């Protein structure tokens, strides 16, 4: 892990932050309100600092500020860039994170992240999982729950098989639990805690 630091290179942010953050928020709102739908964030995303994908970097640039501690599985240049653009604290404690980013193949256990409390279930982590592919790939997930009329099928590449079992436990702990956004390049798909996940 590079030092969270001083001499790390700073990646570029949005050219037009007002428009870009509004558009990316709406895409994310769409993805989380309609689990299973693959949403394209569009062309022209800024180049992402290592180890983030363009999609994750754009979502974080859109939503973070001084109120949102960020946890990164691997800090790299990303921590310095996001601290510079958003002013967000970077935390090493998963339980403190409002937003977190981890690779879909090697993420910490979901229960390590903030789950919210019975009184305030909203105080939980939103976890961006970087996967290899969306709409293709090895895992075929069948999703049910709010936002889905009957059921939806989502193909994911590069998601740890053990994580799918954790997603089911996460759903069972509703209304507490983490909310997940799968990110593959500039494509995203939402898996909020309301979604029931099965492997086909």
């Amino acid at each position, binding site marked *: 892990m590079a030092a969270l630091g001083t001499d790390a290179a700073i990646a570029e942010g949005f050219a037009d*932050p*007002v*428009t870009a*953050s*509004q*558009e990316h*928020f*709406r895409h*994310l*709102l769409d993805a*989380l*309100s*309609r689990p299973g739908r693959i949403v394209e964030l569009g062309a022209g995303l800024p180049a992402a600092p290592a180890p983030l994908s363009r999609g994750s970097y754009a979502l974080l640039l*859109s*939503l*973070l*500020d001084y*109120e*949102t501690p960020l946890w990164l599985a691997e800090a790299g240049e990303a921590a310095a860039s996001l601290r510079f653009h958003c002013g967000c604290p970077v935390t090493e404690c998963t339980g403190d994170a*409002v937003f977190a980013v981890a690779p879909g193949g090697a993420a910490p256990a979901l229960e390590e992240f903030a789950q919210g409390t*019975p*009184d*305030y*279930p*909203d105080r*939980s982590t*939103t976890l961006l999982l970087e996967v290899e592919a969306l709409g293709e790939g090895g895992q075929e997930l069948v999703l049910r729950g*709010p*936002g*889905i*009329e009957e059921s939806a099928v989502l193909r994911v590449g590069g998601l740890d098989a053990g994580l799918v079992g954790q997603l089911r436990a996460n759903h069972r702990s*509703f*209304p507490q639990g983490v*909310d997940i956004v799968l990110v593959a390049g500039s494509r995203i798909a939402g898996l*909020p*805690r*309301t979604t029931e996940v099965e492997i086909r």
Partner: protein
Amino acid sequence: MSAATNIDGGGTLAGYNFAYLDEQTKRMIRRALLKAVAIPGYQVPFASRDMPLPYGWGTGGIQVTAACIGQEDVLKVIDQGADDTTNAVSIRRFFATTAGVATTERTVEASIIQTRHRIPEKPLTEGQILVYQVPIPEPLRFLEPRERETRKLHALADYGVMHVRLYEDIARLGRIATSYSYPVLVNDRYVMSPSPIPKFDNPKMHMNPALQLFGAGREKRIYAIPPFTKVVSLDFEDHPFEIQKWDEPCAICGATGSYLDEVVTDDAGNRMFCCSDTDHCAERVAAGEGPGAGESR
């Protein structure tokens, strides 16, 4: 019909950020909205800002709309179903001025519809967002004034007190007398206030393809119903939920399936009933429907 244009004149106001709110405020509201969607019916606290109009005039709805709206959006605002009342016109103009977005009175053209106390008669579609203005977000507030207690009741899903309230109506009056703000159970978990919409509109919330967002500015709460989410109005097996019905059709367009307002027309106490949804009514009149034209819906 031509594409929507800005019916309120154009041009953004110099010296203000896009859609009035500053970017940090928008981010804070956006994060609350994302959590609200992930926990349907749960009221997410947010740091509601002072707006350039008083509480009770839709400050919550305006903040939600301001956090969502983009240059491509087409905005419609209704107040009790009407596009042409003071509150609706002033909020529409507010966004026409501060965001320069296109505005419309037509439900089908709108991508965001901000509403006070109605759901449009025309079924909403997938791309649309309905933003409700909410005065009292807590459905249990008049039964339990302490926030700490109502929060605990929600945490435990302990809603017996609400059923007792509905039962007391039946014991006293023989029926559930609540006709607006009729409580609903969202996704089999949270009891939620649908805002003061008439109970006539409650069934439209169930499995609606549009995203429904709720903003309460004074009470500083945001909540949501994602598309295709189960929404059930509370009732009893022997006293099932019912919506209002009228003996006569709309006096202007002849509709029998829409929510009607009673309008007193003179000092002699004469009255008429007409659609509360002005766009729905005008569309039917334009299509040649009327009180004598034979009714379909």
